[in-house]
């Protein structure tokens, strides 16, 4: 047993020395490999983080939202509708919501303004998302002003800054009191943006939506599954784009591994011949090549994955941003919540480390089975 461990140790030591001897070649190899893992891992982390954010958004979405339309265009909804809708069997509660968007031309950002259902700020004060806080350099207790619907600025004191689990949801959010919102947006007292419904049984969503449509023909009930479809389309579109990039990089990896697999330099072949001539078996050579492949691929995998993690979660995927966050000019910068699916990391491991290690063993096996007398000639 001790001899077996010593044998592994010796061969691993020799492999490390062999790798260091060819610093330039192996350094270049490691760099390319790390870059490919970095891109693949960035894509995986990014798409997964987006999906995770979407799931968080949906968790908090109302079961049914009722909007009002006029000739197909969105309108504010009368608060009085909520009383009749509440009478429908299966509806637990109806909550008129006040929310909307505000474009800030000075900062080229779009804010979401909302009156929260519970614990609203006092009139004259607001809660803001971390994205707005960062962008405007505003902290708790500071006074911040926004131009209202009539162009006149309104000043608010910052009561709180969110540090929510999902920055995608809260980064651009401003919470304010109903009084302030109505004054700011110009929405009359008897109107609201939409109605949020709580429903007892998910199987009744469709029936209740239909009843609302009959009750108010100009209403548009949106059930959670429809919202889900919207988000799927939104994030799925980006994920789809990512998959195209993923496929291209995966193909590059296959070409890279294949190139490595089919080429064993004359110097390496000679070295294998020497080792065999002085007493190494084919299995010893294979073990050496296995360690060589493992050391390179594991190092590249770890480096690439760590760099990708930093890229996606610390720099908000800065390299991908120009492509996939084209609307970022209308949105305060948000940071994705660090989230890793170990199943995906394992998939990445098996897609990169295993094929590379296998492809380096095959040519070495071919070289290792050559008679050692080739070095005599």
């Amino acid at each position: 047993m001790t001899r077996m461990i010593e044998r592994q140790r010796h061969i691993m030591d020799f492999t490390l020395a062999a790798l260091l001897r060819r610093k330039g070649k192996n350094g270049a190899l490691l760099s390319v490999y790390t870059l490919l893992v970095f891109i693949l891992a960035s894509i995986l982390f990014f798409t997964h983080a987006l999906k995770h954010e979407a799931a968080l958004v949906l968790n908090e979405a109302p079961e049914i939202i009722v909007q009002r339309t006029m000739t197909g265009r969105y309108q504010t909804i009368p608060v009085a509708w909520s009383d009749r809708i509440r009478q429908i069997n299966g509806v637990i509660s109806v909550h008129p919501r006040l929310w909307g968007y505000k474009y800030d031309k000075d900062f080229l950002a779009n804010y979401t303004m909302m009156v929260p259902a519970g614990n609203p700020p006092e009139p004259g004060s607001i809660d803001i998302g971390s994205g707005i806080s960062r962008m405007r350099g505003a902290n708790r207790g500071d006074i911040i002003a926004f131009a209202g619907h009539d162009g006149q600025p309104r000043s608010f004191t910052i009561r709180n800054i969110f540090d929510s689990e999902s920055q995608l949801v809260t980064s651009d959010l401003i919470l304010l009191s109903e009084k302030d919102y109505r004054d700011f947006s110009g929405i009359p007292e008897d109107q609201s943006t939409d109605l949020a419904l709580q429903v007892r049984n998910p199987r009744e969503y469709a029936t209740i939506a239909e009843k609302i449509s009959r009750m108010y023909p100009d209403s548009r009930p949106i059930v959670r599954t429809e919202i889900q479809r919207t988000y799927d389309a939104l994030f799925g579109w980006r994920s789809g784009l990512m998959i195209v990039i993923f496929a291209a990089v995966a193909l590059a990896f296959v070409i890279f591994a294949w190139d490595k697999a089919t080429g064993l330099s004359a110097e390496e072949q000679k070295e294998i011949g020497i080792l065999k001539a002085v007493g190494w078996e084919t299995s010893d050579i294979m073990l050496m090549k296995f360690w060589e492949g493992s050391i390179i691929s594991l190092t590249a995998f770890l480096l690439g994955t760590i760099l990708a993690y930093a890229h996606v979660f610390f720099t908000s995927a800065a390299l991908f941003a120009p492509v996939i966050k084209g609307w970022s000019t209308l949105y305060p910068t948000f940071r994705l919540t660090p989230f890793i699916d170990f199943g995906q990391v394992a998939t990445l491991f098996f897609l990169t480390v295993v094929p590379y290690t296998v492809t380096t063993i095959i040519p070495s096996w071919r070289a290792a089975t050559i008679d050692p007398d080739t070095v005599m000639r």
Partner: protein
Amino acid sequence: MISARNISKVFNAGRPNEFTALHGVSLDVQLHETTVLKGPSGSGKTTLLSLIGCMARPTTGRIFLNEREITSLPERFLTEVRRSTFGFIFQQFNLIKGISALENVMAPAYPTGEKFSLLRRRAMETLEMFDLGKRADARIEWLSGGEAQRVAIARALIHNPAIIIADEPTTHLDTRLSHEFMDIMGDLKARGTTIILASHDPLVYGSDLVDRVVEMRDGQVVDGESAL
């Protein structure tokens, strides 16, 4: 005794560039003696050496080592015989570049799983035998021709082989280094090591050290005389 019986070796069999290096060679090599295979380039010396040293298998014929037939052994056992019985000194030394003299000497023993400290001590002792203790950590590229030659000999001795096989060992050496090489072989012979050399250098086959010269030509043994 090493006995080769009716040995033939064909390279690239069945291809247009098929080449027969040995034609039915039979030869006995006595242990504890120094035997030189002499002949011009292409006479089959190196091929015969590599077959005797278990580096390759003959196309036909058999080789016996102390009456044990070794030609039909599976690769693993053949490697074991090669490792435990033979030490090789190559024409161009074939040292591994980029690593130290000490690591080169230790490399053949890595697969045996010998304890590192013991192996290192043994390798150092072998290098010191050749006055190379101070150059142990020097990379191969930094060694002089004579030092590299002695490292190659030290490497061949790391397993305490019973038989040393050297292929054209003096081809790349000047006269002084060639004499030095033969002196080292003399010391090994004095300790009971069997030495088999392939050479067409008169300094080698004319040496007092040599017990027997086997002359080869065109893949055949044409003469096998005993040294005076």
